[in-house]
């Protein structure tokens, strides 16, 4: 994979290549945005639709994706306060039907932001993520039900520059403590799912942030996989990309009857690997 980008003009194509190499879906489907569909704030509805069709096909192939108002809902600010940290809440009221969710930020340079697969240890009712948004864009959430069907919903968000926005500190500083983790739990109530917040220290360099000392872009370095287990039960697996904000934070739900410590294994695209274990609150107390 290309580690450095010599000229700004190459960014889009290199990132396209980068996402090509990312097997985000189990089937290894690759994602590519055509330069002819370059994003812009002034795009009309038909151009947005065309772009989504292309992205959808590259991720899901010919599979039917039905629109839904009830299976998944996206909460996001209409206008982002900080394009490099846009909080997204995905709500799935019929949580027992849900196997996983895909998050796509259509107009980002690498649109396929995240895929989350839920295990038996997860409560799939809600997921929160912080993402980067590079342009005025539709955000798509596609849920996969346990019987293998796909449903989508969308939300329009106004933001710009989130992927290329500099971090405000040196690369070295941004990488300090890389791989440190915190796992916080909301107060547990017997029989109710436990809300957990996982924080990972990692710059999640997008590859579009320039470091002119080297007259180069800081190479993309981002968390590409987070696996959360409890005892011998899978909770969830997150496949991530450069659209996830630096110092990734993910909120998720735990099934109340789970047992044992919670283990988190995170890896990045440059072979970084970090593993931490946490004691979960017991809901039976």
């Amino acid at each position, binding site marked *: 994979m290309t580690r450095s980008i010599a000229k700004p003009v190459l960014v889009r194509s290199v990132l396209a290549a980068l996402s090509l190499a990312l097997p985000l879906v189990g089937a290894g489907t690759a994602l590519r945005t055509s330069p002819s569909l370059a994003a812009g704030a002034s795009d009309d509805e038909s151009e947005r639709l065309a772009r989504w069709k292309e992205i959808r096909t590259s991720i899901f192939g010919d599979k039917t994706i039905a629109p839904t108002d009830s299976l998944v809902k996206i*909460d996001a*600010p209409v206008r982002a*306060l*900080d394009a490099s*940290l846009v*909080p997204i*809440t995905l709500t799935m009221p019929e949580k027992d039907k849900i196997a996983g969710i895909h998050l796509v930020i259509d107009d980002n340079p690498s649109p396929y932001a995240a895929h989350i697969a839920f295990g038996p240890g997860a409560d799939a009712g809600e997921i*929160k993520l*912080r993402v980067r948004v590079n342009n005025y864009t539709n955000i798509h959430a596609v849920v996969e039900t346990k019987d293998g069907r796909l449903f989508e919903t969308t939300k329009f968000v106004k933001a710009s*520059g989130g992927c*290329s*926005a*500099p*971090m*405000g*500190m*040196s690369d070295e500083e941004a990488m300090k*403590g890389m791989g*440190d983790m*915190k796992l*916080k739990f*909301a107060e547990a109530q017997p029989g109710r799912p436990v*809300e957990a*917040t996982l*924080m990972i*220290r990692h710059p999640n360099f997008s590859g579009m*942030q*320039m*470091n*002119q*000392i080297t007259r180069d872009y800081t190479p993309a370095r981002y968390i590409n996989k987070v696996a959360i287990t409890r005892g011998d039960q899978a909770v969830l697996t997150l496949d991530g990309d450069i659209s996830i904000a630096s*110092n990734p*934070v993910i*909120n998720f739900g735990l099934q109340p009857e789970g047992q044992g410590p919670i283990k988190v294994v995170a890896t990045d695209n440059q072979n970084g690997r970090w593993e931490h274990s946490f004691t979960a609150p017991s809901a039976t107390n």
Partner: protein
Amino acid sequence: MRADAGRSRWSTTRRSALFGGLCLCCLPTLGRSAEGFDLQEVGPGIFIRRGPDAEATPENDDAIANIGFIVGDRSVLVTESGGSLADGAWLRAEIRKRTDKPISHVVLTHVHPDHCFGAAAFAEDKPVYVGHHALRAALDARGEYYRGRLVEILGADRAGSVVYPTLEVTDGAEVDLGGRAVRFAAHGAAHTNCDLSMRDSASGILFPADLLFVTRIPSLDGSLVGWLKEADRLRAMRATKAVPGHGPRLVDVAPALDDLTRYLTILRDETRKAIVADVPIEKAVRTVAQSERDRWVLFDTYNGRNVTQAFKELEWE
């Protein structure tokens, strides 16, 4: 010795000083439609333009910061370069209307575009560009990004370009303008990670740049905890008057710093409280520091962003 730059010819009238922006419509120096867009002498030989409390627009040339110059016996120091090449060129023309002395120093108080994108307008003067030791790296990281955004708003010919400091202040530094000296202090991460303040020996006036916002809501882009610490350091300098980076041209230091630290303290304490109580960031941006809403211009534009920055900084404490 006091500089003799406060010559009557250049002094502003008492009336304009009293009425501030209100009577400027009849002043011939007002070349723009923006209110208060003129230079006023706030101390002997110290001329400051009040930037409007607005965002950069095609109409205002990003001329939104308080910029100006200090005249010594020998030479002129530019306190802030302006928000664009156009703004810097305006300032340079205004200086030349008032003095022929060489422009020896241009201060780049920090990396933000409304303060340093006017620098190139002074290139022919070959001044010493004074900046914090971390400014170069900050410009490396962000300069082209800022330039791109400014070009979008103002066009390439008015935007300006990245100019690096030629005098990098590590701790302190002093420059002599003839009859008056300007002392610089490089601060720890606060408003940004490259804030430079200065003090004029002749008037005792402090120039904290964007370490001090008045009227306009402070914007946090460095360290919230650090900013509170640097505010204490400014207080300890015991200056009576200051030219803030934004707000009125000249203010009393103590109450202005009190207002600033009140906002920053509320921002810090309420953000910490939200983190401890597991209030999610998307909710915190709507709830934290709302008691300050009526005290600052542009509150709705910046407070949520400040909370986001504070949250990022404090959630790993």
